[in-house]
């Protein structure tokens, strides 16, 4: 398909230029419509954020009584008060979360791409069985393995440390990322590895110098997802961390609410807003790597 395309491109270079010009004009019009559509969608997408923002600024006796997005009185103090609103400061919680999340992202990207490379590009006996077993780990409902897993980490003496949250990430336990990268690795032309192999490149060199750079969009996607999911995870921190000094942000957020006494909703919403700031920053930086692939064009 690539060859055919390349050929016709040569034959019709002049027509192509004319077509591009025409396309540019019609694209301008389409661009406006697109923006209008996107802005409408965007409003639906950000409504919850606006609602949370407005709730974080309302007096607590107004959050649930009124549907209006405009607070009768803007309470900026929920932010500083919420930041210090629990027995331990949110400076600490954010630090803990960043520590766990950054290490987890590194672990996930390295270990899952390793496994994906093996599954997608290398041959070994038992590959299909290993792959099926890996998929099985995705299918079992988490709540029934929670306790057996807890017992393993308890035996290891790791409860009350960050190890149960971080070490598994270096062992490619999240099959989602392995499978994701497999799908992208398999899209890369075989000729690349074969050529490199003939040049005497080791498997590791091929992984590092060819597969990973060419799969940058997939790797960036995996990094983004693993940042968000680890950052938001509360079940892991919930069972493995007992000391409030070690808590991560999502666990801390849930401590503002009470069943049988006063809940600090305003502070909870304020800290919820702040808690997504690191996600947005990470997202905006890493989405830049979801770029046009150079893989196949590079073959020309």
């Amino acid at each position: 398909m690539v060859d055919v395309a390349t050929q016709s491109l040569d034959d019709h270079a002049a027509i192509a230029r004319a077509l591009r010009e025409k396309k540019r004009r019609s694209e301008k019009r389409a661009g406006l419509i697109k923006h209008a559509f996107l802005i409408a969608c965007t409003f639906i997408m950000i409504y919850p954020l606006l609602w949370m923002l407005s709730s974080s600024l309302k007096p607590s006796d107004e959050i649930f009584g009124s549907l209006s997005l405009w607070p009768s009185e803007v309470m900026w103090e929920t932010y500083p008060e919420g930041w210090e609103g629990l027995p331990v400061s949110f400076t600490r919680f954010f630090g803990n979360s960043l520590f766990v999340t950054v290490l987890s992202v590194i672990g996930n990207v390295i270990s899952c791409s390793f496994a994906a490379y093996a599954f997608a590009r290398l041959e070994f006996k038992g590959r299909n069985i290993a792959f099926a077993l890996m998929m099985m780990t995705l299918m079992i409902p988490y709540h029934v393995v929670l306790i057996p897993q807890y017992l393993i980490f308890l035996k290891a003496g790791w409860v009350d440390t960050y190890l149960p949250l971080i070490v598994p990430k270096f062992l490619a336990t999240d099959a989602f990322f392995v499978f994701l990268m497999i799908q992208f690795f398999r899209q890369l032309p075989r000729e690349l590895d074969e050529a490199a192999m003939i040049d005497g490149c080791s498997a590791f060199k091929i992984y590092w110098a060819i597969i990973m750079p060419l799969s940058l969009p997939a790797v960036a996607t995996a990094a983004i997802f693993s940042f968000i999911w680890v950052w938001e995870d509360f079940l892991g921190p919930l069972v493995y961390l007992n000391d409030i000094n070690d808590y991560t942000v999502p666990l801390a957020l849930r401590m503002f609410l009470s069943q049988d006494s006063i809940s600090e909703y305003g502070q909870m919403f304020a800290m919820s807003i702040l808690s997504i700031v690191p996600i947005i920053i990470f997202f905006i930086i890493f989405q830049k790597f979801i770029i046009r692939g150079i893989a196949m064009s590079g073959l020309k």
Partner: protein
Amino acid sequence: MTQFNRRRFLKTAAMTAGAGVAASSFSLPTFAQDARIRHFWWGNPDRDERTFAVIDIFNSKHPNIFVEGETLGFSDYFTRLTTQIAGGNMADVIQQGYGVLFEYVDRGAVVPLDEWVGNTIDLSKMDQSALDAGTVNGQLYALSIGANSHMAMYNTRLYEEAGFRPGEDFDPYGWTYEDVARIGAAVTDATGTFGTDDNTADYQNFSDFVVQKGGKLYNDDGSYGPTQEIVEEYWETWKMIRDAGATPPGPESAGQVGAEVSQWGIVTGRTATTYAWSNQLVGAQNLMQDTLGAAMFPNTPAMVPGSYIQPSQFICLTRDSANPEAATTYMNAFVNDLDMTKVLGLERGIPSNSEVREALRPTLEGAAATSVEFFDTIQDKVAVLPPPFPTGANEVEQTFERMAVAVLLDQGSISDVARDFLRQAEAILARA
């Protein structure tokens, strides 16, 4: 990231790599000389602050015991607790609610305190009713750290607008279901806000009703008490109130089953009366501009008491405690030491220690004062606390709430749903 965490992480990593499996943070040398006690509770910002402060007081008074606090939000508390039960590493002292305590006792997760009574634990100032509530099969398993009762909360502004003043136009401590229908309909007409929540699916109201009718929720042999007639009559009673125009339409009420405080109709301005636990008054008031009044749950004209005064929360000693002597010393201080109870205040409910209660009284205002006044008034208007409910009681309660929704949605006749519910309740109790 703080230095502390990085160090701690690396230390643990090194420890595990080197020393193998045995090294846990439990055996860190720092407190090896002292008894290390873990206290685990569900909290909120205010409670957490008070409890950590109390722990500091205790630790400074008892140099050879080191108490560590662990806290979580209520919604997460039992998930962690369950995991720790399986791991055999529960905290020494845990917080428990009245409803679930008995399952934990039944299955052996918490242990009796009797051998420590008169030794490390002093019960002389505790209300007898609170002690009874923590007693199962003649053994004391739990110390009450706050009393609780059913409470109807009403919006005083809306009631006044409709012409109802407590004590003059209705008796908050002796109103009937007919009163609720009449007042509710009048409030709906006068204010446009529905006069009352619909309790068709409220198991707490149902349990009151059973006792008001002279029945029992559970028979002595553990079988289910309510009869077909009682279940039907309860749902008919609330249908009467609904038909009077006092409540929101059935489907709206169906959406309120199990709603948390912030979503209650009285908080969001949909209704003028709700039915809950007395220790929720302060929290609900905090989310509202109008002032809340306190009343008992409605009764039948015969006025047989149906509500109980029961502990809202207990502290218990777990079977995983390695040093019950130190743990019970701490538990004792938690309920008796006036320096500590002063800091704890009413935050967990009305204290069960009379001395502590009197010391607190002058400091109260607003909804907290309303709660205490309510408690003083209902003392002689409540029923005797029944023996602990059997295992499976929680599931029966959830089943009731689920099936009552069919009544609210008009999916099936009251007698059919009632029959179905009783059959399922029986099956649950047989399976448990």
